């Protein structure tokens, strides 16, 4: 290893009074080296983002650097003044942010935003700036550079926007690139491309990269060095190989163990069991009127979707954003109306029912939602949230609340929770409440729509275990929607892969992973981060 480009020593960043803890970052030290990628890993609230922002002097006003040193090119960044920062930012240290949509000014063309980097440091003539912008756009692999630099951010896809952001960061050949979860908002195939791009550029420009992420799969793919953060402190640090292969600290071990393995465990086939849910020829097209004189825009959310779930079986529905998997979940739940097709539960045709008749059948199929913060009414007590459905079916409130207490016990929460409001619970606990609500109506089928996607990896593992356990105990069938193939591998008996509203492949999990037939399935599987170097 060569000399460090950036050396962070004993950095302490104080949080404002009244925060959960006193320091966002508490005595953190590590180095960045030219030509190397350092991954800073941690769960939400670990202080990893603060480290990134400190490196560019972009910390929010509410926090304060208490002590420490960030040595860069012979000076301490913590004592740099505003003019000094202005000179360093973009030129010597550049940053790529998490959300490529919000990180670009919606009112300015991509080219203008690129050329601005040169303007900020009074470099080149306007004409040269344009030529440079074109070259950069080409270097980050954007198609049709002439068109791209004239485009506005909203005219690009998420991956293209992130490429444009990277082009901006590269413009002045900085010595250090700080990337704050740059692929978290992207689909898995796009993520794989962006990771590859960062890897290549970093090597060809010999940059030191600080890469913030929560995803150990990404770490495995991209890191040379790893720093594991927890509650603002470094718990473990070392080469990627060492940290991923031979973790020393218990926390790192637990985190790695919580990452679902890519190897599907062997599962008994349920295909002899009777069908709990059957979906035949489901079609749904969204039509967006764009004006009187313009053709309507059509988005096909579901096209000829067929599948069946057998009793006791979990069917996974995987795909990228916009593939229509969530639409299918909502079509099955009758939350949106299908253009065509049938949804059958046992021998009842759900799509043929309406009004009261539909409401009396709804209890048979229940849903667990993605966002633990949006899925519980903030103004109702937990007990009522769980009991409401039972009351609607005619159970007296007393009895319903008593049952709610039992259910809370079942999902591993204290029965006393019924008298409290949702905001008093953590994300994982809220998701448990959501599960209790779904179970309250004794359903035959559970539809879980990205039910663990919003959770930190350790919490995610717990909730997945709970779901598996409950499913087995209560003999439920499940439709499990996810974008995460690792999760799908662990929980699904069979998996259906969706692309552009169609199921392109449907197979038992093990068979799908061992022998993907459709080109898209292969692409999807290849893109899963950390695939080649299976973590611990």
């Amino acid at each position, binding site marked *: 290893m060569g000399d460090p480009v950036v050396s962070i020593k004993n950095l302490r960043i104080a949080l404002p009074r009244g925060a959960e803890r006193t320091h966002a970052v508490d005595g953190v030290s590590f180095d960045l080296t030219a030509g190397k990628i350092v991954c800073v890993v941690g769960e939400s609230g670990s202080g990893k983002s603060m480290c990134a922002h400190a490196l560019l002097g*972009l910390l929010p006003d509410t926090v304060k650097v208490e002590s420490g040193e960030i040595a860069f090119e012979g000076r301490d960044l913590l004592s740099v003044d505003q003019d000094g920062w202005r000179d*360093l*930012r973009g030129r010597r240290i550049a940053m790529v942010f998490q959300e490529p949509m919000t990180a670009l*000014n919606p*009112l300015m063309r991509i080219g203008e935003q690129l050329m*601005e980097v040169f303007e*900020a440091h009074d470099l080149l003539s306007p004409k040269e700036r344009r030529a440079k912008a074109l070259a950069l756009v080409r270097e980050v692999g954007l198609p049709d550079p002439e068109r791209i630099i004239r485009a*506005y951010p909203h005219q690009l896809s998420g991956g293209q926007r992130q490429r444009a952001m990277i082009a901006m960061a590269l413009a002045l050949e900085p010595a250090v690139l700080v990337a704050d979860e740059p692929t978290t908002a992207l689909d898995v195939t796009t993520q794989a491309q962006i990771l590859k791009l960062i890897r290549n550029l970093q090597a060809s420009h010999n940059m030191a990269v600080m890469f913030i992420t929560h995803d150990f799969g990404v770490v495995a793919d991209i890191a040379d060095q790893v720093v594991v953060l927890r509650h603002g402190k470094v718990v473990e640090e070392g080469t990627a190989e060492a940290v991923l292969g031979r973790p020393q600290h218990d926390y790192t071990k637990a985190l790695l163990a919580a990452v679902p393995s890519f190897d599907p465990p062997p599962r008994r086939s349920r295909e002899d069991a009777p069908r709990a849910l059957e979906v035949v020829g489901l079609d749904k097209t969204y039509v967006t009127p764009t*004006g009187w004189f313009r053709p309507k825009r059509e988005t096909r959310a579901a096209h000829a979707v067929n599948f069946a779930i057998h009793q006791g079986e979990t069917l996974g529905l995987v795909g990228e954003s916009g593939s229509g998997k969530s639409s299918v979940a909502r079509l099955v739940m009758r939350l949106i109306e299908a253009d065509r097709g049938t949804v059958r539960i046992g021998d009842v045709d759900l799509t043929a029912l309406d009004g009261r008749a539909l409401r009396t059948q709804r209890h048979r199929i229940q849903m667990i939602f993605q966002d633990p913060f949006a899925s519980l009414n903030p103004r109702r007590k937990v007990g009522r949230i769980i009991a409401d459905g039972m009351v609607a079916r005619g159970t007296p409130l007393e009895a319903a609340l008593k049952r709610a207490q039992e259910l809370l016990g079942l999902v591993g929460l204290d029965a006393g929770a019924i008298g409290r409001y949702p905001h008093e619970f953590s994300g994982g606990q809220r998701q448990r409440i959501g599960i209790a609500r779904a179970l309250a109506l004794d359903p035959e089928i559970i539809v879980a729509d990205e039910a663990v996607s919003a959770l930190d990896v350790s919490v995610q593992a717990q909730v997945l275990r709970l779901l598996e356990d409950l499913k087995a105990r209560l003999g439920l069938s499940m439709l499990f929607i996810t974008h995460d193939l690792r999760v799908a591998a662990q929980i699904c008996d069979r998996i259906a892969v969706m692309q552009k509203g169609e199921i392109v492949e449907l197979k038992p999990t093990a068979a799908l992973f061992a022998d993907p037939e459709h080109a898209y399935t292969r692409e999807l599987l290849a893109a899963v981060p950390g695939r080649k170097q299976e973590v611990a």
Partner: protein
Amino acid sequence: MLSFIAQRVVKGVIVLLAIIVLNFFLIRLAPGDPAVVMAGEAGASDQIFVAQLREKFGLDRPLPEQLLIYVKGIASLDLGFSFRQQAPVAKLIAERLPATLLLTLTAFAISLGLGILFGVLAARFAGTFLDTAITVLALIFYATPLFWIALIAILLFSVWADWLPSFGYETVGAGYTGLRHALDVGAHLVMPAATLGLFFMATYTRMTRASMLEVKRLDFVKTALAKGLRDGIILRRHVLRNALLPVVTLAGVHAGTLVGGAVLTETVFAWPGIGRLMYDALIQRDYNLLLGVFVVSSAMVLIFNLVTDLVYRLVDPRIEYAS
């Protein structure tokens, strides 16, 4: 772009038609038999005259037919006849319209320009004394009744200080021409335009300030900082441009309020515009004239809304894709 304009114009015409229909029924809501009222307004009340009026204005025919006649009349710019003033309503309004346009557009320009300026200053120096001063003043002007501030202005600048003329459009009988005349009108315009603009200026100040502070927190401002751009450029190019979008929307929403405010301002300053005309019609219970002014001011608001929509479209490239 053209198709957008066409679409908006068609929409505007539909709304205008709806307003005309509403107007038609409002006339019928007015107390008394319209013919008798009209005859009364004309100062005559004999049966034959009433019958004549009834026939002339088609008041003896069934309601839908009357509506058709009414709409046709308006399409040929016939807004009816004002018996009190003994002149066609359209002619009366046409005479007064330029003065109102001069007043409202001046007030609009002043309020938007100064409002944005003060809003930017307050946001730029947020938390300082300047910000507090601007915010408090904006809050007060936002709560001040228009007609009252106009009277206070007269009291201060005409009665006590004698700096500015307190009523009218020009110095009557002075016979100024050319530049002298323009300056004379300008002097008469200062107080009405300033007092009419004050409320709106306060609104735009508050909106610009709030919007700037909100945009300042957005991610792309952080991107701009990370590029090493100077604060001035970030403020102008990234923050202000985005922050002005809601201000443009608000300006469109306020067009109607501006026209309404002109009624009060013109009344206080005896400014010879259609607002003053409306007040006169009100005092004399001249319903034809009243409703004529109402239709014309609605049309003005429609045109103004169309313009703000166009401006919005020009400044926000995303709009084309929004539904």
